[in-house]
């Protein structure tokens, strides 16, 4: 149980010091540059797995909150994580890295595509890349899920979200609106799993 007044920069007194600004920017540049097929998966890979700046739980919380906001989830996550470590400057650094990094390769690929896009080999290469990128998105979601070990109730909510959008193709807004109260209920139900909620 934690009673300490929350502090924006140091949510937990035992938390490690924030990463230096340059290292933080470079990490987001890496996320942007390698972010084939979904920046979320790469952000988790770089920030949680490689650098260890956030725990799996902390990252998943940012992911959860950013989906109720408009705009790309990955960018919302980047803004909030940047702000956590370095305030507004951190948010701007994260955005510059994640968007600025891929800009040059994107324009390069667009140029190549404009010239060779009709070649079947180019299309086939892109298909292979897209298939692997899809697997990366699926694998990352499964990895976070198995690491967080949610209880039965929370797992059921996640499965509903997946079935509603992935299989039934229901409208996103309706699914999120319907499942949010159920998710909160499930989290309340399984609060002992989180240890510190009460």
């Amino acid at each position, binding site marked *: 149980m*934690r009673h300490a007044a*929350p502090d924006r920069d140091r949510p937990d007194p035992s938390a490690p010091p924030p990463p230096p600004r340059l290292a933080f920017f470079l990490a987001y540049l890496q996320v942007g540059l*390698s*972010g*084939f*097929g979904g*920046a979320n998966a790469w952000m988790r890979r770089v920030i949680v*797995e490689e650098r260890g700046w956030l725990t799996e739980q902390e990252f998943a919380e940012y*992911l*959860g909150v*950013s*989906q*109720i906001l*408009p*705009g*790309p989830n990955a*960018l*919302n996550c980047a803004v*909030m994580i940047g*702000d956590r470590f370095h305030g507004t400057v951190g*948010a701007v650094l994260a955005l510059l890295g994640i*968007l600025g*990094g*891929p*800009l040059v*390769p*994107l324009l390069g690929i*667009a140029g190549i*595509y404009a010239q060779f896009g009709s070649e079947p*080999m180019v299309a086939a*290469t892109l298909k*292979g*890349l*897209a*298939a*692997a990128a*899809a*697997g*990366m*998105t*699926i*694998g*990352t*979601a499964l990895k*976070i*899920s198995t690491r967080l070990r*949610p209880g039965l109730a929370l*797992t059921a909510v*996640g499965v509903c*979200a*997946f079935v*509603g959008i*992935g*299989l039934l193709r229901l409208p*996103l807004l309706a699914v999120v609106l319907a499942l*949010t109260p*159920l998710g909160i209920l499930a*989290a309340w139900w399984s609060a002992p799993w989180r240890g*510190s*909620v009460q």
Partner: protein
Amino acid sequence: MTGGTLALLIQLTLVFAPLSLAAIGGAIAVLPEIQRQVVEIHGWVTADSFMDLFALAQAAPGPNMMVVSLIGWQVAGVVGLLVATIAMVGPPALLALALGRLRARFAGLSWVRVTQAGLIPIALGLNLASGVVLAQAAHQGVTTLVLTLGTTLFVWLTRWSPLWTLAIGAVAGMAAS
């Protein structure tokens, strides 16, 4: 900058800034509306090149919303690219900044923590669904299926960099053509 270019840039902003706030769940959610505005209403690009630009934004690194950057680039060059990107990113980023601060401020309250915990499985379910939808879009027989399943297991069960499987995917796609 000519008056015509300036007018174009203002139009780009007026199209993308409001759309950015409607994009709950990411740019994919407003993709049909982006197409309607860009292809049908303003005629900035043809329907075919719109699909090409989207495929490129998916194939290239970076968030999928960068299709908007590419449209800006097609419409008004590098300035157009910057203006379209900022219009699409700026408004949600400001909201995220505000919500992030509120969240940190009230992180100690138990209902805030329960709410956050309740949103996590929805986010994971949606991510999983995006992966499956993308896999279906990329599906083209056994090769792509094996690539998707192989990468899934590789990322799920190992700590090695997924860049390897992406490279294998590109090479396998090329070889299968």
